[in-house]
C-alpha cells in the first residue's frame, strides 16, 4: 500500500497544471477509475499531511501511474518542484471508484481538474467498449488539458470555457443542459463543488442519477480519522460519510449540498 515510486516524468501542461508519471507497478495493476493516492509532497514536517490526488491514468505495461494536478498551495508547489529520478512516497490506491455498466453509452462531466479521474474513467470505458460522451469545461482554452489524448481515445467531447476561447462560452453545466443527454446513459462527474452542486440540480430536473467524485480535506485517507466527512441523506435525516473510504465517489442524489 505504501510505495516509494520513482518519478518517470513531470510535465507542465498549463501555467499551473502539471502531469507527473510515477513508476508504481502495483498501483498501475490495481487502481480503478475514481481511486486516489495519498502523496507526501515534502521531506520536512511542514506541510505535514499527505495530499490526495486522483489516479489520472495507468500504463500497466510500463508500471506507470499518472497524476494530474493544479498548483494551488504549498503541497502542490513542492510537488511541482520534484525532479525526475527522485522518489515520491505514495499510499494507495485508495477509496471506492466509479461503477460502470458493462456496455452502453456513458456521460462524463469534468470541470477543471475534475478531468483527472475522468480521463482514467474514459480510457477504461473505451477499453471495455462503452461509448463515451465527455462534457469538459475550464476557465480558458489553455486549462483544457490532455486535449490530444482525449481526442485520440475516440470519444465525443463537448468543450466549454468561461471565456469562450475554446468550445462553448459558459459553464460545462450550461453546455450539458443545452446539448441534452442520451437516454439512460449513466452520468459521472468531477469538479469544483459549485459546479457539482449546479450539476446535481440540473440532473435532478432531468430525473437522472449520477456518480460524483467529491473532495474534502483529508487526514489519513484510509477511513480512520473521520476527518473527511461529507453530509449524506439518510431517510429524512442525514449522516456523515467518509470521502476517503466510503467514497470519493458518491451518488449525486444522496449528497446534501450546503
Amino acid at each position, binding site marked *: 500500500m505504501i510505495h516509494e515510486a520513482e518519478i518517470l516524468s513531470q510535465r507542465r501542461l498549463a501555467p499551473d497544471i502539471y502531469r507527473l508519471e510515477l513508476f508504481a507497478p502495483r498501483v498501475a495493476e490495481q487502481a480503478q477509475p475514481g481511486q486516489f493516492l495519498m502523496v507526501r509532497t515534502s521531506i520536512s514536517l511542514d506541510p505535514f499531511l499527505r495530499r490526495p490526488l486522483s489516479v489520472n491514468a495507468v500504463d500497466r505495461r510500463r508500471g506507470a501511474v499518472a497524476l494530474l494536478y493544479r498548483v494551488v498551495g504549498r503541497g502542490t508547489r513542492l510537488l511541482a518542484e520534484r525532479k525526475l529520478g527522485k522518489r515520491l512516497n505514495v499510499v494507495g490506491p485508495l477509496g471506492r471508484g466509479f461503477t460502470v455498466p458493462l456496455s452502453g453509452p456513458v456521460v462524463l462531466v469534468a470541470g477543471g481538474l475534475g478531468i483527472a479521474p475522468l480521463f482514467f474513467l474514459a480510457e477504461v470505458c473505451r477499453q471495455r467498449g462503452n461509448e463515451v460522451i465527455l462534457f469538459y469545461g475550464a476557465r480558458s482554452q489553455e486549462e483544457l488539458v490532455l486535449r490530444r489524448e482525449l481526442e485520440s481515445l475516440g470519444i465525443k467531447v463537448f468543450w466549454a470555457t468561461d471565456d469562450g476561447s475554446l468550445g462553448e462560452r459558459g459553464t460545462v453545466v450550461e453546455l450539458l443542459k443545452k446539448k441534452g443527454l442520451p437516454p439512460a446513459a449513466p452520468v459521472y462527474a468531477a469538479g469544483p463543488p459549485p459546479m457539482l452542486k449546479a450539476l446535481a440540480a440540473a440532473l435532478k430536473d432531468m430525473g437522472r442519477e449520477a456518480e460524483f467524485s467529491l473532495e474534502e480535506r483529508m*487526514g489519513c485517507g484510509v477511513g480512520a480519522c473521520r476527518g473527511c466527512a461529507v453530509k449524506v441523506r439518510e431517510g429524512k435525516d442525514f449522516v456523515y460519510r467518509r470521502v476517503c473510504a466510503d467514497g470519493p465517489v458518491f451518488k449525486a442524489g444522496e449528497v446534501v449540498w450546503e
Partner: protein
Amino acid sequence: MKKPRLAVDLGPNLVLKNPVVTASGTFGFGLEYAPFGDLALLGAVVIKSVTRHPRRGNPPPRLVETPAGVLNSIGLENPGVEKVVKEILPALRATGEVTVIGSVAGETVEEYVEVSCRLAEAGVAALELNLSCPNVKAGTLFGHDPRLAAQVTRAVREALGDGFPFLVKLGVVGNDFLAVARAVVEAGATGLSLINTLPGLAVDVKRRKLLLGQGTGGLSGPAIRPVALWAVWRAYRELRVPIIGMGGVAGVEDVLAFLLCGARAVAVGSGTLAFPRLAWELVEGLEQALAKEGVEDVRELIGMVAGS
C-alpha cells in the same frame, strides 16, 4: 547483540509487549490500519473514543493543516458502545492477539461508568477516560475541574473494581492540569495519558469565518511536541504514576524523548496520518536504537532525563 527487552507495564495489571501504542482517534478502531501491518506487533491499539450512543460528529470541514500540525474537530464520531462491543471488538480480535485499550467519552458520570463497564466486560486490556476532548460541548467539563474529574474517576474505579487498569487523559490548556492529574490519581486512576490536543482555531480570511465547521478544534502533531514533553516531565516528577505520553511523535528520537521524560508508553497520533506504518516503524526503530546504545531493557530509560 542481545535483543533488548521492550515490555513495559502500566500499573500492576497491564503489561504491554512494547511501549508503542496508537493515540485514540488517529488509528480508527485499528481495522482501518490492518492492511498496513500486524496489529498484534504494537504495544497496544488505543481505539477511537466511544460514547453510549452513536455520534455522527461535527459538520465539515473537520480537519485543517497548520504549520507542522493538524487542527481537528471530529466531534467524537463513533458508532456507540453497543456496536463497538458487538461488532468492532470481535472483528479486531479476529485479526490476531491485539492488545486493545478502550477510550471512553461521555457527558455525565453515568455515561463514563456505563461505557467503561461495557468495554471492560468486552475484554479490553485497559481503558482511557477521555476527559479532555476540546471538540464537543461537555468535552473538557470534567478535565478542567479537579473535583469533577475526581468524581468521574472514583465512580469508574468503583464500578470496575480495584484491579482494572485505567488511565485518565488530560489536556493542558485552560486548566491547572497538574491539580487535575493529582485529583484523578488520588481518586483511583492507574495513571495518566498526556496530552490531548490543544484548543485552537483557523480562520478563512477571505470569507471572514472560522475554517472548521464547528468553529474551534484541537491542535496536534509535531508542532505541539515540546509542550507534550513538558507536560509528561512535569507530571512524572510530581506524581510518579504510569503515563502514556503523546503529542507530535514522528520518529524514534521522539519515542526516546517521551520515555526519558517519564512516559512508560508512547502513543503515535497525527504521525500515523502522515506515515501509515509509523507505529510499526517505531517499534522496530526503538529496538534497534536500544541495541545500538547497549540498553538491555527499555525500562532503564523511563524518567532518566537529567535536568540542566
